[in-house]
Each structure stands twice: as C-alpha cells, then as structure tokens.
C-alpha cells in the first residue's frame, strides 16, 4: 500500500480549487488552461488560470484531474502554491516544492507531481503564445507507462 501523508489524504478527500474557471469577459483579466496527459495514459491534468494581465499575476487557479490519489492531491497543492504569484515566479515552482507541500510522496509516485509542473508550463506558455518544446525522451527506461515519464525526466525535474 502506498504510504501517503495526512496532507496527501486530506487534499485527496477535500481537494481545494477543484473545477474549471469560466471564461471571463472583464477587461484586463485573462482565463487560460493548460493540459497534460490523456485518458489513455491513465493520468491527465487540466490546469485553469485566471490572470491579471497588467500585473502578470495569477488571481485564481483551478484543476481537473484524472488520476490517482497523488495526482489529485498534487494538482490541488499546485493551485494553492501558485495563487497570487506572478507568472514568472510560478514558472519557478518545481515538482519538488509540490511534493514538499504535501509532506512528501512515495518514491514511485514522485512523477505524479511532475504532471502539475508541466500543466502549469503548458498553461503559461499558451497564454504567452509560446510553442512548447517537447523534451526528447531519449535514454532512460519508462517507469510510468501511464503517461510516458522516463526515469531521466523524473530525475531532471525532481533534483
């Protein structure tokens, strides 16, 4: 059985910021979402951001997650972490910070926090109109077949 911290379980049972953000007509406010994973992989995260255009700040963040306990808790943790940050600051949030916020994740589940970081990148890059570079999954065994995370990638992101 996975050894989940109380924080993981709490955010799984009572997730904060779950759901979508409705499109906003107000001037100066932008709503955007980023998505990673797919139903075929077994994990997917859609991260919604409401951004104050002038200050570049995240006013609100919400998530929709298809995935395991850690994936749901990580998504919720991410939204808590980035609310109020500027987009540049948010881009510096690492999956390790997400895991730390949760009081740690089982080793085999660390990749579940990577998804959050990637969805955030996807959302911000989309907002900024930047083409996302796809990391080459060169060497490294696939350890999470569900959405193609390689061991290398986990190391790269986690350390």
């Amino acid at each position, binding site marked *: 059985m996975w050894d989940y911290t109380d924080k993981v379980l709490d955010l799984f049972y009572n997730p904060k910021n779950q759901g979508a953000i409705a499109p906003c007509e107000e001037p100066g406010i932008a709503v955007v979402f980023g998505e990673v994973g797919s139903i075929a992989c077994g994990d997917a995260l859609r991260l919604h951001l409401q951004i104050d255009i002038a200050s570049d700040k995240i006013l609100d963040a919400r998530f929709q997650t298809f995935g395991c*306990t850690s994936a749901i808790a990580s998504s919720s943790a991410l939204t808590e972490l980035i609310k109020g940050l500027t987009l540049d600051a948010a881009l510096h949030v690492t999956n390790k910070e997400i895991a730390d916020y949760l009081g740690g994740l089982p080793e085999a589940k660390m990749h579940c926090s990577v998804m959050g970081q990637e969805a955030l990148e996807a959302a911000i890059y989309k907002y900024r109109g930047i083409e996302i570079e796809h990391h080459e999954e060169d060497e490294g065994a696939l350890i999470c077949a569900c959405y193609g995370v390689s061991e290398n990638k986990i190391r790269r992101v986690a350390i």
Partner: protein
Amino acid sequence: MNIIYFDNNATTQVDPIVLEAMLPYLQEYYGNPSSMHSFGGQVSKAIQAARSQLASLLGAEDSEIVFTSCGTEGNNTAIRAALAAQPDRDRIITTQVEHACVLNVCKQLEKQGYTVTYLSVDRHGQIDLTELEAALTGSTALVTTMYANNETGVVFPIEEIGALAKSYGAAFHVDAVQAVGKLPLNLKTSTIDLLTLSGHKLHAPKGVGALYVRRGFRFRPLLLGGHQERGRRAGTENVAGIVALGKAAELAQQHFQSTTLEQQLRDRLEQGLLATISDCQVNGHPTQRLPNTTNIGFKYIEGEAILLSLNQYGVCASSGSACTSGSLEPSHVLRAMGIPYTILHGSIRFSLSRYTTAAEVDRVLELMPPIIERLRAISPFNSD
C-alpha cells in the same frame, strides 16, 4: 472501524475452525514429522490426515498431493517439472491473462530457448479453443492455463483445453489457485497432470499451498534436499499450515453450497452498482465466471482513487492483483481483453467470501455512487 472485506481473491480470513485445528501444532505437537520418535511420528500422522482431506476435496489420491509454501511455488515448480519431464519438447502454451508467477516463469524460459505462445482472450476474457489447437504441435511440452482468473473471475474450459493438450501428448498444468473451493474439481476423471492451489485463498493461512501431481507423472522437484513429501518437495514441512489447509479443504467441501449464496450477493452488488451508477460496465464473462467475483470499470476516473475513497470507510477492494498492486501499469488482464482506455484505468474488483453479508453489500451499494460522483466531478473528462 468495521472492515468490509471485499478482497477475498487477494487473500481470505482464516476460518476460526481452521485456526483451532492448527493451533496444537504451534504448541504441544512441535515435533519434526521426519523424526524417529513417536513425538515426531504423531505430527507426521497429522500431515497424512491433512493430505487425505485435501485429496478428498480434489478427487485425488493422497499420494498425488505435494504440499508447498504458496501458489507461486506450486506454479514455478509445476512448470519446471513438466519441462524437465520432456526434455525433447521446447514449446509452451499459456494465456495472456495468467498470474505473474506463471507469466514471469514463461518469460524466463523464453530467454532459455523455449518458445511460448500466449493465447489471447476475447472482450469477455475467454480464450478461443481453435487458437489453442492451432498453436499445439508435437513439440509442445506443456499447456499451462488458469482455471479461474483472479482479476475477473473468468473461468476457462479446462477439460476442453486438457483434451486438446493430451491429443498432442503435451503435459497439462492448471493454476487453480482461485478455483479451489469455489468450483468443483474431480481430478480422478480429469485431463489435468499438475494442479496448483494456495491455502490462503480458501480460509487457510498464508504460507502453505499444494501441488497435485498425477500418479505416474514424471516429476522433478524444484527444491532439493531431504526426503520430505516423498522426495518431491524438500524442506521441513509447515506442519501447522498443512494441518490448516487440510481442515480448510474439509470445510470448503462442507460449505460448497454456500457459493450459491455468495453468487446471489455478488449479483446483488453487481446489478446494484450498474443500476445506480452511469457509465460503468462489468469486465468479464456474463456467465463463465467465479461466483464470488465482479470486476467493474467506471469511466473517466482512476481505480486507485476509488480504492482509497472506499478505504476511508473500511471497505477493502482492489484493482489488478494484490501482488502487482504496487506497480503503476494498468492490469495486463484487462488490456488483453481490449477494455477501452476510458474504462481500463477505472476498474476495480470486488471479491466476496462465505463471510460476506447482505448488509455489507448494501453498505457498499450506498457508498459507491457518491464516491464515483465526487471523483468524476474532479475529472476533466467527465463533461466531455
């Protein structure tokens, strides 16, 4: 918290009568059954009695029973014994939906030069006998299939499989770990050469199992050493475990009708879930299925999240098999059945036992809809 245990295909509760039977062998009767003195001799008699009890459940002869430490040891031993008995044959036929302890041995054997055919299953989890027949050749050493699948409960037509195997002179091994005690067996009139079972699936403790070896079958032990089990399995016997398995076999025979009750409760659970929750389906065969098992896939959500939600209320269920539950891969059984991805990841198994009550079923029927609803509300796919 009260536990509602719907995970009996993973392991079962030791029947209190079984515990009572084994206890003396953890207390005053601690002798070694191989010893010369009567203190050891009486222990040896207890093992013989357990052998008869188990043989009787299987319709086998006492001398055809070899006690082991678990189903995994039984399967590993049986497969290797069958190959050693026929060194001139180099092909194995099994199915894609076997337990890891058969599949991993087969994979290892492929590295050693054996050719292994993994029979496919249809969307109900059933194999196709014509595919089996096409795969059989004069160099097939062994056909090894389960009797009943641990994840879906799907039951294979073992005697038809065995008849085909025999017609090509191949040995026939059956992994009956999930079937013994739930389905009838009469090995006397069967095509089976080797059959594996495991105590902890039928209300005996973990750490004991047995291998049936048809009389006259050329057997080669996996564990070498002393003369225990007539030289077919060395190592000091798990005496208390063996006595327990014997008693559990006797009880299984007595309780045989209770499987009808189990099936009624299983059906009530299954139909209740299908009726109250949208977008879900049974993974498995509508009729060729163990009486105690239902595997249900819920669209748009993920199995672990369902399990952990149930866990909060003391309800034990599972996804995949227990011993691969640490892995992140979706079930190889459901993938082999071609279950669509939308459902694959959200499939969980409920497995009942003779201890299951209607009240427990109703409690789960009450808990599940809000759990599924909550998780679907979190999921991005629900509304798509």
